[in-house]
């Protein structure tokens, strides 16, 4: 850090502003949370008082089932909303929960609490089976294969009618009792309500923890999230189980509420009810499933649960929500409310705090710092795509602390080589050595955790999160935070969070972002700014090597200048940097050495403080339009 404190006064001032902005942002979040908790308590009290005004077994059964539906929707929202996995099999999960709990009670005489636990286990197992293909297929394939399971369910129930009661439904479920006391209808209703509140609390804790970042990273960053040390498929499968949990519990409770289980209750219409509820309310928001389910449940109370008008309304509701309010009602309401409070306007062109650096040219490497031994090297790396020989035997090495520019014409294999180094592409031949170990064939996340960070040509950020949070995400993969501490918000998890936040703040300061950008969603910021945030995310975990893919593309002159300064500061901290870049003045200004890639081979390698070889000179002079060749996707 001492390297950065060249202008102590200015930095201190900036730091003050950053701290102020940070406290303000934390206060905003806390206020929002308090409002949410207050609303939740009010709703809970209101719903808890229902038994005072409306009684009767039938009424309780309907209210209980409505609560179960909301609970299942809260689970579904974890998968669809927060993780972006369009799974439509939650009706099967609920059914499995209901049948497992019901059969345990009816056939084996298992007591209420254990039958419910058994139901949850059954639901989780069914959820794992139904959503398993999600590890291999995405998008509508996943939607269809999970919806397929919903159509299969009634057949399986008939085939196993000896246990499930088949078409006639499962009867004989014992009235719920606990410690010898029979739970009356209203008690079961209150228990369901409390469990719903508990599920809501756990989910709320989870999505604000590091796991919340993991889920959103899978949704918005996808396979690229491996580059920050995450394992997307492992997270996906965890989410399937997490999302199935509430639905399984809801199903088990519904079995006791109805004292009857029938496959008809868990068909396409239930799938659609849950899906429409989540989408209408706002997928990926905490209140979404509740706001969205409320009108749908109200409608079903009005026209009756078996009316065909339910299906018309659900279908039309889903269609309209997809067309009119694609993000759902909760984000709409939130935008309305935030519009009233004056937002601190930031000029997008100047998101980075100005630093009056007297643009020092390219200080010679040896005058600036000493380079260490070789840290990353490639020998004879080959890669062929179909008939295209993208890499034809690359040999190169990078020394500890070096800032290397990788240049070359379009199609020379620069991005492919970067993908090989970061593990996204496994080379056909040759090997990669990193810190005296052969890392050829290592997974992307292994390399990331070992200290090889990277950025992408198109910045891969989570748009809805703020600048600081996006930087924080760079540390999530390095923390082994468990699900239970996160859901219960144990001190351990709070400590993880504090550690992340402090490191992110430090990086935020080091990258000299304008303080007012700290608490703003990155969606509102310019492309150039997002690139620098992505570099911050890669830098926050103190990587050994940073691989940057065209960081200066699309930046204006000032932004490029700032970016160059930040990279040199990172290099001064001892981080080795390999930067792929077309902009010749930019690489000449910041780099210690250049590597020229032509036709899949390194044809030239030179330190910039020495005279440049002929070949490199020629390339640099003849590169037709070095500043406009940015559009390469």
């Amino acid at each position, binding site marked *: 850090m001492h390297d950065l404190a060249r202008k102590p006064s200015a930095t201190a001032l900036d730091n003050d502003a950053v701290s102020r902005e940070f406290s303000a942002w934390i206060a905003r979040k806390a206020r929002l949370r308090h409002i949410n908790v207050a609303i939740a308590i009010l709703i809970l009290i209101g719903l808890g008082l229902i038994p005072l005004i409306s009684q009767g077994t039938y009424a309780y059964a309907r209210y209980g089932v409505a609560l179960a539906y909301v609970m299942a929707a809260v689970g579904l929202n974890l998968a669809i909303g927060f993780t*972006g996995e*369009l799974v439509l099999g939650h009706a099967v999960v609920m059914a499995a929960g209901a049948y497992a709990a019901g059969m345990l009670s009816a056939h084996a005489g298992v007591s209420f609490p254990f039958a419910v636990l058994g139901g949850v286990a059954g639901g989780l197992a069914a959820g794992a089976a139904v959503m*398993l*293909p999600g*590890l*291999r*297929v*995405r*998008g*509508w*394939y996943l*939607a*269809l*294969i999970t*919806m*397929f*399971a919903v*159509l*299969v369910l009634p*057949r*399986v129930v*008939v*085939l196993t009618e000896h246990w499930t009661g088949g078409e006639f439904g499962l009867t004989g479920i014992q009235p719920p009792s606990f410690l010898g006391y029979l739970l009356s209808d209203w008690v079961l209703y209150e228990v369901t309500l409390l469990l719903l509140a508990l599920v809501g609390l756990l989910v709320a804790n989870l999505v604000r923890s590091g796991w919340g970042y993991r889920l959103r990273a899978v949704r918005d960053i*996808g396979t690229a999230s491996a580059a920050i040390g995450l394992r997307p498929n492992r997270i996906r499968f965890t989410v399937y189980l997490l999302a199935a949990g509430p639905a399984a519990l809801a199903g088990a409770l519904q079995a006791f509420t109805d004292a009857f289980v029938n496959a008809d209750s868990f068909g*396409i219409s239930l799938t*659609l009810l849950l*899906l*429409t509820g989540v*989408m209408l309310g706002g997928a990926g928001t905490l209140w979404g499933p509740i706001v969205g389910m409320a009108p749908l449940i109200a409608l079903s109370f009005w026209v009756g649960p078996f009316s*065909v*008008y339910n*299906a*018309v309304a*659900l*279908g*039309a*509701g*889903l*269609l*309209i*929500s*997809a*067309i009119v309010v*694609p993000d759902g009602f909760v984000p709409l309401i939130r935008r309305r409310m935030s519009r009233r409070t004056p937002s601190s306007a930031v000029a997008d062109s100047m998101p980075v705090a100005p630093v009056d650096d007297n643009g020092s040219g390219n200080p010679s490497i040896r005058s600036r710092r000493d380079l260490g031994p070789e840290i990353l090297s490639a020998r004879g790396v080959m890669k062929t795509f179909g008939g295209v020989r993208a890499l034809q035997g690359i040999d190169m090495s990078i020394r500890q602390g070096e800032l290397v520019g990788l240049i070359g014409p379009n199609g020379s294999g620069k991005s492919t080589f970067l993908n090989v180094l970061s593990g996204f592409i496994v080379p056909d031949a040759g090997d990669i050595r990193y810190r005296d170990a052969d890392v050829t064939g290592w997974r992307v996340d292994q390399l990331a955790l070992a200290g090889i960070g990277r950025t992408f040509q198109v910045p891969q950020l989570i748009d809805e999160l703020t600048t600081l949070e996006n930087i924080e995400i760079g540390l999530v993969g390095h923390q082994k935070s468990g699900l239970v501490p996160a859901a219960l918000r144990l001190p351990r998890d709070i400590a993880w969070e504090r550690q992340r936040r402090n490191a992110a703040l430090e990086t935020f300061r080091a990258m000299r972002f304008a303080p007012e950008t700290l608490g703003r969603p990155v969606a509102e910021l310019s492309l150039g700014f997002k690139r620098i945030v992505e570099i911050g995310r890669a830098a926050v975990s103190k990587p050994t090597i940073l691989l940057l893919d065209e960081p200066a593309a699309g930046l204006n002159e000032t932004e490029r200048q700032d970016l160059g300064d930040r990279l040199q500061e990172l290099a001064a901290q001892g981080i080795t940097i390999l930067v792929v870049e077309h902009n010749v003045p930019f690489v000449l200004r910041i780099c210690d050495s250049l590597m020229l890639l032509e036709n899949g081979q390194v044809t030239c390698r030179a330190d910039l403080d020495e005279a440049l070889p002929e070949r490199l000179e020629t390339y640099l002079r003849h590169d037709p339009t070095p500043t406009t060749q940015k559009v390469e996707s």
Partner: protein
Amino acid sequence: MSATIIILGLITGLALASIYVLIAISFTLVLAASGVFNFAQGTIVMIGTILALVLGVQFGWPVLAVAAGVVLVGAIAGVLTHLIAVWPVIGRTKSFAHSTMLSTIGLGIAANAIAALLFGADSQPVPPYVSDSPLLIGSIPLRPTYLLVIVVGIFLTMTIEIVIRKTVVGSVFRITLEDPEGAQLLGIDTRIVILLAFAIAGGLSGMAGFLVAPIISASAFTAQELAIYGFAAMAIGGFGSFAGALVGGAIVGILTGVLPAIANPQVTLPVLWIVVVAFLVVKPSGLYGTAGLFGSTNLREV
């Protein structure tokens, strides 16, 4: 005896296969041109079965007129799907694929429910379009209806395949999906191409409904199941490949034709589900699937 049952099951299976192939190709056509997976496609097939009854039996139209009417209505339904569920979404959301999936599911479900309101909840048998007296081949009685479905199905599939492969239409579809702006620069009106794809797919789906009506009866509750069978054919065969659609359709058709003949009919759907899941887990691209659609890379992540 049991051999006869299996052969009869095979014939039924091949007839169903032709239907599933038509549905699978409808899905593919729309996806190829617009990138939309049209969940409402099953609804158009269902409407086809109902129109076969209404126009053919209640109105007494001649068979060919019914077929033409069903194709026309299917094409219109396809275009309406685009205008209602796809066109309003364009340019308004972060994820076009995600939004159109939801809007077409919504449209399909609403349309299914309205069909149930209008047509009633019961399924009604549709008389066969050709003679119902079985042709005896050896000792095996073959129902001409099934043969008709197989012949027409194969004919339609081949026609589409040849049109796509041998004419400029295929290239136009491909460039419309891969590079809409480039297509416009070439003077292609991409809106027309996309509408055309929805219309052709709608017509094919309507035809599939018309053909299958005598086998499965007219009912307002068949849409999802038919769409799922079409999807299963696509998933097994491999997405975006005509050979895949044929082979996948044949596998799904034969499974659904033979299994009920030799085992408890309730087993069919669960077995098919397990087969499709196994395919997706082991080989997500299916038997003949390319990484992308018609060689495109836009949909690599399916």
